[in-house]
């Protein structure tokens, strides 16, 4: 296993293997997002309290979960890059940031749109909303810091430290609805006691879970493609990159 990881972590092998893997993530993403949207928008019944407005959760919840998952992956990769100096880990961290920022933006905006008819306001300085907004700022700060240095090693080091410090925000986001009296509702399926008996009907739960998997596949496809390009740029002085570009291979 360790040998396989080491082999995969070599930039050239990563480039080759990830090129094969991308379609395996991309096409199932398209299929699942189509099924999830059809099920969520047309098959799932109307909620007896929230009416049709609850249909926003089929994008809001997966986006919010992914915003935290991507940050976790980014911070762990940044930590591995910082401690063991593995180039590929820094690449994964760097390319994950804009994708994670996209998910966070989506979670915040769709949450705000859902909040207007349900809470009567677009925004409140509630602990869950505020900590999620801080997550967006952390992503933006990471990207800014990574681009602020001419030396890639210094950029990776500085931004990795920021990513690791920012990880403290993840438990705050997750437990904010328990630790503070928030307007945002508590967990319906993501807490341990709710996994066995979710407080959501299966007709609504299944499209939600399908969308969660679709978002994960989308992230995998995007991070692999962006990682491939980042590797080409970083390894531009290597013979294999030149042969690949000159050969016109994509």
């Amino acid at each position, binding site marked *: 296993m360790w040998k396989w990881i080491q082999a995969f972590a070599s930039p050239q092998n990563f480039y080759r293997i990830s090129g094969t893997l991308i379609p395996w993530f991309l096409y199932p993403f398209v299929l699942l997002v189509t099924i999830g*949207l059809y099920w969520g*928008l047309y098959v799932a019944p109307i909620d007896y309290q929230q*009416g*049709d*407005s609850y*249909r*926003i959760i089929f*994008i*809001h919840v997966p*986006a919010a979960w992914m915003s935290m998952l991507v940050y976790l992956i980014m911070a762990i990769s940044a930590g591995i890059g910082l401690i063991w100096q593995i180039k590929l880990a820094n690449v994964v961290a760097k390319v994950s940031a*804009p*994708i994670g920022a*996209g998910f966070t*933006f*989506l979670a915040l*905006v*769709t949450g705000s*749109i*859902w909040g*207007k*008819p349900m809470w009567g306001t677009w925004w409140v300085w509630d602990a869950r909303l505020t900590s999620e907004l801080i997550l967006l700022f952390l992503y933006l700060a990471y990207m800014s810091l990574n681009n602020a240095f001419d030396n890639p090693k210094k950029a990776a080091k500085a931004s990795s430290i920021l990513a690791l410090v920012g990880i403290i925000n993840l438990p705050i986001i997750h437990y904010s609805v328990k630790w503070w009296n928030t307007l945002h509702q508590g967990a319906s399926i993501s807490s341990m006691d709710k996994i066995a008996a979710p407080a959501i009907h299966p007709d609504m739960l299944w499209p939600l879970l399908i969308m969660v998997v679709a978002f994960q596949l*989308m992230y995998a496809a*995007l991070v692999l*493609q*962006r990682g*491939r*390009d980042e590797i*080409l*740029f970083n390894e*531009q002085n290597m013979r294999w*990159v*030149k042969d690949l*570009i*000159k050969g016109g291979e*994509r």
Partner: protein
Amino acid sequence: MMIAEYFSFLPFGKYAFYVWSSYIIFFVTVFWLFYRTKKIHERIFNQLRIKYDREDNK
């Protein structure tokens, strides 16, 4: 509430504006993430091709 009523001809009634605007933002964000990925890919390929051509012609 006026905006919501204006969009009530769409499926999802008085919530049509909120539901559809959320899904439009979702599609725009997903499109943007894929579009940016494609653009970065093209930029790096072109940049490196020019660099190698210049090196070979020296």
